[in-house]
């Protein structure tokens, strides 16, 4: 029996706003993160990931408040990423209510932190995110700071090291695909999933349900992290009411437009699709009772 795939909405947060970029670039505001989180929780999300997108620019993670607010009444695992540098940072975020933390820049600069953190907080608490960009020769290299800084480290050797150091899971992000809706990078995901024995979460490029199926079947992902596909669906339903006076460019929201690169989809639609494709996940088919017979 195959294990259940997890659908993990990823919320990029800047200050008080939820933003959505392309290639991990751009700060288009789509709304308020708490509202998206609640919507996804009610809709059957398996976990939620919060990413502080400007944390590495300022060397700090500012999500503690929203983490606490969320963890108080959303009872599914919450992973927090962005600007987490030290063991103290990890402890603070966990105390604030997070279940897992994800490291990228800190892990690459100082790999030992993975080892120390997983010893101190438990392997399963420590996730490592790898931002991969494909070079002209076909090799994938790891980047940091939201796909900004070249590290010279090849993804394949890095993932193996990450596992060795004791990380519990890996998120593999294709920066080339992220936000484009052009589909996951199957080659990249498969390469990573086959190289390690810890769970691999695919991220970057989901445009439609079929993309999710592909990255699970061919990419061998254990879970998928999705943003655009879900966010642009939630945005459709909403009326612009919130306060953006402090910061946030809402020109896009004012137009009421969508983003045609992705099919706005609900979590339930994704899960139902996976179910019929024989990909198990946390989903119950709505069976209709037929008179006189048992299900």
């Amino acid at each position, binding site marked *: *029996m195959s*294990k*259940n795939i997890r659908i993990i909405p990823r919320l990029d947060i800047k200050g008080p706003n939820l933003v959505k970029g392309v290639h991990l670039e751009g700060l288009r505001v789509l709304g308020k993160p708490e509202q998206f989180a609640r919507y996804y929780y009610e809709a059957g999300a398996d976990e939620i990931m919060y990413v502080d997108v400007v944390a590495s620019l300022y060397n700090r993670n500012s999500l503690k408040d929203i983490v606490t607010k969320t963890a108080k009444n959303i*009872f599914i*695992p919450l992973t927090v990423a962005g600007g987490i540098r030290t063991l103290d940072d990890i402890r603070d975020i966990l105390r604030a209510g997070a*279940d897992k933390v994800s490291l990228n820049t800190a892990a690459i600069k100082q790999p030992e932190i993975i080892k120390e953190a997983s010893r101190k*907080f*438990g392997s399963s*608490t420590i996730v490592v995110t790898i931002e991969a960009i494909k070079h002209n020769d076909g090799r994938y290299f790891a980047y940091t700071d939201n796909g900004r800084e070249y590290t010279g480290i090849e993804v394949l050797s890095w993932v193996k090291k990450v596992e060795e150091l004791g990380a519990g899971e890996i998120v593999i992000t294709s920066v080339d695909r992220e936000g484009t809706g052009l589909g996951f990078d199957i080659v990249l995901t498969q390469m990573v999933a086959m190289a390690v*024995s810890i769970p691999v979460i695919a991220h970057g490029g989901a445009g439609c349900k079929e993309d999710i199926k592909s990255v699970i079947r061919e990419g061998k992902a254990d879970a998928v992290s999705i943003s655009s596909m879900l966010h642009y669906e939630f945005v459709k339903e909403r009326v612009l009411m919130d306060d953006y006076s402090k910061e946030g460019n809402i020109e896009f929201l004012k137009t009421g437009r969508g983003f045609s690169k992705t099919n706005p989809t609900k979590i339930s639609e994704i899960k139902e699709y996976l179910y019929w494709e024989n990909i198990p996940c946390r989903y119950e088919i709505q069976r209709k009772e037929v008179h006189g017979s048992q299900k």
Partner: protein
Amino acid sequence: MAAKSEGEVAIIDYQAGNLFSVQHACITVGLHCRIISSPNEILNACALILPGVGAFGDAMNNLRTLDLIQPLKDFASSGRPFLGICLGMQLLFSESEEFGNVKGLDIVEGRVIRFPEQNEKRKKVKIPHIGWNRIYIPKYNKSWNGTILDHIKDGEFMYFVHSFYVSPQNINQILSLTNYEGIEFCSAIIKENIFATQFHPEKSAKEGIKIFRNWAAIVKKNKESWLL
């Protein structure tokens, strides 16, 4: 000698993971709880939760350093409600395979075993087991009525994250079973006043909160009988 209960649920803090969600799950279902780490405070609690995430060996060391081992055993035998979650459940057992055999609290007889790297069909097993999985009523159990799994559907999804699982000596103590990559394992136990789950009910959405609600009812009933 059992002291008069103060009416609070003790959540044990032994530096093994996050207590925030457990605490908030309790608050959500109306349980007054307090995070404690000293033996004295345990004696006065009306019920106890032993949560936890991380390494078995380190956890036992912490419990030892905090002088909590005997108080926990005493509480378990006091008949007051005791809830173990994840690592908290594993610690109840006699011994764990982790890092060469480490002794546990020995409150429940049995061992703690690591998931194999390959299953019987030689398929690679990803460890830890992370994600949602179904819990089932074991064939030899009639139902979950009156337990913390009351009104939970047979086959309901719960959230798991672990690399080891428990193997109780007494199969009648197995409350639920779960299957991961072809390996069937015990995902919840029941022993008199002790309930424990491998999965995290505080991370299992609304059905998980239902489990807390069930346990809160048990705690309430138990308190009332104490006060009589």
